[in-house]
């Protein structure tokens, strides 16, 4: 298993390297650029040339890439030009990472906690009202665009009803102590309960918006998978043994039905990053999703490179974890 993990990690480095070449070329082929973003369209050619030279953009592309790579190897991804000019791009990423992890984790917990029990029940009571209505809800979940849903939730629950905060991660008046950058966790560690609760309240709407697609997908996979497992001979064997419903459900149905679900959850964690770009923007959440949107608007090459490469690395890493987890659940994978 250890050798397998090492091999996969080496593969991951390869993936990120190849992606970095493509990304580097692609970003610079886009119309506009950091110079236009910073100076506007009316700048004189002289000032443009000066800034280009300062940012190193006057050099040939391959040289820019080699420079980028050699500096990146020592953890220096260059300074931001647009989001927070002058600040190290990696620092921007690391500062904003906890916000996105907190949001994604919360969204995933909501999605999984709802989708798996509901998927199981829908399969068990196939054709019932619960089954049909769950399918409709999950269909709406995938069909409604995330940004629309985010705006809708914000409008109804924050702006009209005032039940939940409109945006941000914490209310301005609170003087909360920062420890880890995960605001809810920080509040719990420092026993600042009001800060923890406030951070949680800020999480609810963006997390719900972000959870809809993973919920819908995980629900459908769970339902289909449970339906398939219920028809298996070993479930009949378990019934023939007179086992209790609890044991049949947990040990014989769900344990087998979870195999495809685990894979799906892994893929959905990757997809969460895409959803986070939209959700964080609507709720000004201050995570890497929002940073990605901002840096794109300003053609902040340094920040974009860090964020996209990191996102790719996270995606590969999550899928590696899923594969390892799969082997833990399914003994047939282990011995192969």
């Amino acid at each position, binding site marked *: 298993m250890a050798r397998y993990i090492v091999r996969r990690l080496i593969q991951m480095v390869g993936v990120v390297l190849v992606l970095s070449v493509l990304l580097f070329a692609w970003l610079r082929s886009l119309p506009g650029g950091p110079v236009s973003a910073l100076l506007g369209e009316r700048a004189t050619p002289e000032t443009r040339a000066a800034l280009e030279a300062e940012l190193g953009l006057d050099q040939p592309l391959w040289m820019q890439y080699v420079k980028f790579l050699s500096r990146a190897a020592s953890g220096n991804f260059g300074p931001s030009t647009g989001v927070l000019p002058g600040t190290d791009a990696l620092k921007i990423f690391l500062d904003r990472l906890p916000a996105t992890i907190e949001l994604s984790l919360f969204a995933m917990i909501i999605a999984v906690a709802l989708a798996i029990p509901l998927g199981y029940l829908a399969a068990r009571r196939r054709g019932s009202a619960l089954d049909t209505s769950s399918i409709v809800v999950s269909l709406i979940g995938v069909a409604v665009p995330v940004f629309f849903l985010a705006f809708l939730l914000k409008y109804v629950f924050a702006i009209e009803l005032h039940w939940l905060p409109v945006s941000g991660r914490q209310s301005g008046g609170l003087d909360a102590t920062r420890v880890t950058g995960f605001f809810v966790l920080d509040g719990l560690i420092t026993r600042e309960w009001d800060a923890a609760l406030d951070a949680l309240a800020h999480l609810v709407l963006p997390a719900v918006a972000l959870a809809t697609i993973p919920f819908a997908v995980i629900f459908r996979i769970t339902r289909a998978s449970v339906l398939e497992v219920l028809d298996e001979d070993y479930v009949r*064997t378990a*019934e023939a043994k007179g086992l209790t419903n609890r044991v049949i459900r947990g040990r014989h149905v769900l344990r087998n039905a979870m195999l495809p679900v685990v894979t799906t959850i892994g893929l959905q964690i990757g997809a969460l990053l895409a959803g986070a770009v939209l959700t964080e923007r609507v709720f000004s959440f201050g995570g890497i999703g929002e940073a990605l949107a901002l840096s794109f608007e300003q053609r902040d090459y340094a920040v974009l490179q860090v964020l996209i490469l990191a996102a790719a690395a996270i995606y590969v890493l999550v899928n590696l974890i899923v594969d390892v987890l799969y082997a833990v659940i399914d003994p047939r994978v282990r011995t192969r």
Partner: protein
Amino acid sequence: MSTAASPPDRRHPTAPADGPAVHDPAAAGRSDATGPLLSVRNLTVRFRRQGEEDFVAVDDVSFDVRAGQTVGLVGESGCGKSVTSLAIMGLLPKRGNTVTGRVDFEGIDLLSLSPRQLRDRRGRDIAMIFQDPLSSLNPVVPIGVQVSEVIERHVGLSRAKARPQARELLSKVGIPDPDRRLSEYPHQLSGGMRQRALIAMALACRPRLLIADEPTTALDVTIQAQILALLKELVQDSGTALVMITHDLGVVAGLCDRVNVLYGGRIVERADRHELFATPRHPYTNGLLASIPRLDAPRGQRLSPVPGSVADNIPWDHACAFAPRCDRPVAACREVTPELVTDEAAPSAPGGLPRALRCHHPVEPGQESR
């Protein structure tokens, strides 16, 4: 209407007087000393079909199993034998079918029990083993857990206390190195080992009745013989009654005391094993016997299979369902539904159901096509 009680209008010749072997009546537990352990009466299972008439999979089937006895349900695929066993166990799908009749086990009608009451009996009083050992075992749960969970459930032992018993069971069913096997998974065992493990699970709580649904069909021929020998030994030792569901009369010959031959969801012939092999009366039984390959047959002699196959919906209305495949049909076979007629002269069943036959033109002794 009860076929078992219908008056005999045709006398069968007396068959060899060799009653069913009751191995150990004392092992029957709470079972009545004289009555049968399992008494199935007029069992009928209908499956609802969309836009079509119900499909009658099992039609008015009655048979008895006495404590310690081995009873065969014999027939081709689709004859209703597996559905019969699932109906007895209460394992048919919850929706889409209706089950009528009585299934008395130790005097209690299983069909009238609540799911919870039935659950308490399954695995403890009545156990079942299935056809395909690989698909019948949970692929992601160790063998040891799959054996001990039955003991945990019905005896109320903890996992740790049930484990030595599970180990004991595995060694009893002839699995070598049971300690290692306990923590292994089904895919790590051979086909024969898997079926042995399933038998261990079924016998874990010393049930009084075991239903085996084609337990050897998915196995190699050499393994088949081993598993049958094991089953025979185990039921004899423990006094467990066995309902053997099979299409293989070879299995019946080696194992069963009583035999019920099913065709199209109905019993067409019921007899003691020796009578059945000595004087098969129904043309279908006769055909099944003739289709068994024989080592003493002259070289070059062709096997004689029963022609055709069980039709999708077998018409017993105003005809004999077997008539289209029968080698000796008469006019009545296509006009009148044959009734199951008992032969009370046959001394075969002390206390059980007598020999019976459903045929207008039965095979006479000496006419067997063998």
